């Protein structure tokens, strides 16, 4: 049974713990505190969480770059601790920071990656040409990477990860630092290649919309552990009813207490000037909520009602909001769709 399960599981992490030393006078940093998840073959699995949650550390351990203090991990059915070099043949790795050689051209970067993976010169040349065309780098293919824009270099990073048709591709925050246009193009490419290449993708991101758009399943990571896991739809449907969000004119600690007394509102949380809650029927609960705040002398700047989003899922499981990704991401999402 275990063997069967493993055959269909491309990625499996069990109780990963990793501690970094933080200098002589500081206590060690516990990056991972028993992180576990598994991803089925051929799916895009998202690790969603803020910077410092442990996403990159997880990717480093699974891609053999780092070793866990304890716990176990399998990639493409291979134990990363016992046989790291076999894992390396099966994976493509796109790190958070660029991994291209700036003193080489795109073609040279790709050929080296292919040859190191044991491809013949002929196969590597053909594959490099295919990827260069697909990522729209044809005109710049024979220019040094040091002359590339951030978006072009990022595309080449992903192309490098795909060069040898890996079984598992790691994408560590592939769109961080990209402008909206480049991000939208990248999303488009990731979605397409996940479908075309029949591979498993582990995507880390701190953009909720990115996870929602690209991931088949995702795990919400907070302080080195997985706090929730499921498909984006499952996670959202766990939350009953509508989300109510009220922006106060100025922060007021009494607001939460006032709203908790309003019939039909529950799960009230405060974060600065923002008060969030849930209700089965938003349209009915909002007027008494606003009336109660007004009666208590608390000025309201705005109020919104929304169907549950991943943002709400995140908030519920971690108790804090993920940084708002900003308006341009929504536009990028629309463009990508």
């Amino acid at each position, binding site marked *: 049974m275990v063997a069967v399960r493993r055959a269909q599981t491309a990625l499996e992490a069990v109780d990963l713990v990793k501690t970094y030393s933080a200098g002589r006078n500081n206590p060690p940093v516990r990056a991972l505190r028993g992180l576990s998840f598994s991803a089925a073959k051929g799916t895009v699995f998202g690790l969603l969480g803020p910077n410092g949650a442990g996403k990159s550390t997880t990717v480093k351990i699974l891609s053999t770059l780092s070793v866990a203090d304890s716990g176990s991990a399998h990639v493409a059915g291979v134990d990363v601790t016992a046989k790291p070099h076999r894992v*390396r043949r099966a994976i493509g790795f796109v790190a958070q920071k660029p991994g291209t050689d700036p*003193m080489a051209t795109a073609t040279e970067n790709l050929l080296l990656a292919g040859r190191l993976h044991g491809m013949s010169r002929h196969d590597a040349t053909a594959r490099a040409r295919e990827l260069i065309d697909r990522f729209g780098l044809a005109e710049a293919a024979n220019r040094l990477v040091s002359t590339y824009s951030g978006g072009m270099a990022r595309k080449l990073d992903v192309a490098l990860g795909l060069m040898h048709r890996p079984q598992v591709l790691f994408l560590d925050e592939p769109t961080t630092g990209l402008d909206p246009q480049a991000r939208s193009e990248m999303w488009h490419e990731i979605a397409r290649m996940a479908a075309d290449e029949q591979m498993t993708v582990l995507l880390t991101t701190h953009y909720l919309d990115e996870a929602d758009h690209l991931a088949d399943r995702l795990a919400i990571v907070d302080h080195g552990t997985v706090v929730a896991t499921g498909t984006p739809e499952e996670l959202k449907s766990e939350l009953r009813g509508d989300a109510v969000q009220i922006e106060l004119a100025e922060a007021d600690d009494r607001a939460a207490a006032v709203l908790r007394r309003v019939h039909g509102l529950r799960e009230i949380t405060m974060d600065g000037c923002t008060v969030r809650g849930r209700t089965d029927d938003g349209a009915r609960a909002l007027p008494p909520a606003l009336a109660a705040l007004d009666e208590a002398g608390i000025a309201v700047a705005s109020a919104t009602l929304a169907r549950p989003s991943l943002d709400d899922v995140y908030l519920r499981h971690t108790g804090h909001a993920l940084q708002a990704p900003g308006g341009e991401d929504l536009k990028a999402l629309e463009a990508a769709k």
Partner: protein
Amino acid sequence: MTTAHTESTGARPLTLIAHTAFLTGRLMRTLWRTPTFLIVGLVQPVIWLLLFSRLFRSVVDLPGFTHGDGGFLRFLTPGVVMMTALFASAWAGTTYLQDIDRGVMDRLLTSPASRAAMMCATMAHQAIQTVIQSLVIVVIALIAGATFPGGPAGVALTVLAAALLTLIFSALSNAVALLTRQQATLIAISQFTTLPLMFLSSAVMDLQLAPGWVRSVAAYNPVEWAVVAAREAMAAHTDWSVVGTRLGVLAAAVAVMGFLATRAFRAYRKST
């Protein structure tokens, strides 16, 4: 057992050679595009060669200076060749630091490229530069009027000794780079080691004129091994046992340093 061994190193010999060739090719291409360091690295030795050979011309006439045949320029040339090799290879770790900084290192480490190949490639890259620089220095010495009775074979063995010396110290520099990951530390360690190693050898002065303790220390100094092998190979009546033993210990030191430096990748992985 064989399988287990292959598993643990992650590479068969042919793969190791192929990977070393691919990675060396990458570094040579970069050198070809920006040969600045290679050329700038020649300015200092050429100045030493031409200045010192004039300035200290008469030291060969000192009583006790036993290697004075052919003048100070002939004496000094192997010394300058080794100094150049030593100083350049002490900086070899910079390539790793740049790769770490640019993320190239992490990408290579997650690829099937073997650690040994990654180490060999940077060492080979440095050795090739040394071969080029050594030949340029010898040619300049010849133009300046030096004669080398050892002929082309003597020059070839001098270049070989310089290349071996480069392999030792570039491996050391790579290990320091992997362990410290800091340019400042790498520079400090390079400077603290290279100058003493140079002056605790007969690179610029006949050790017969040095205190006894310097001679004792020099016997364990790879720079001295290389200088002695080269000077003997370029002399009129070469004692081949001297050349052979010195090249032998240099080669053994290359193997040991290369192995130890490759182990430094483990420390790098632990702390990543």
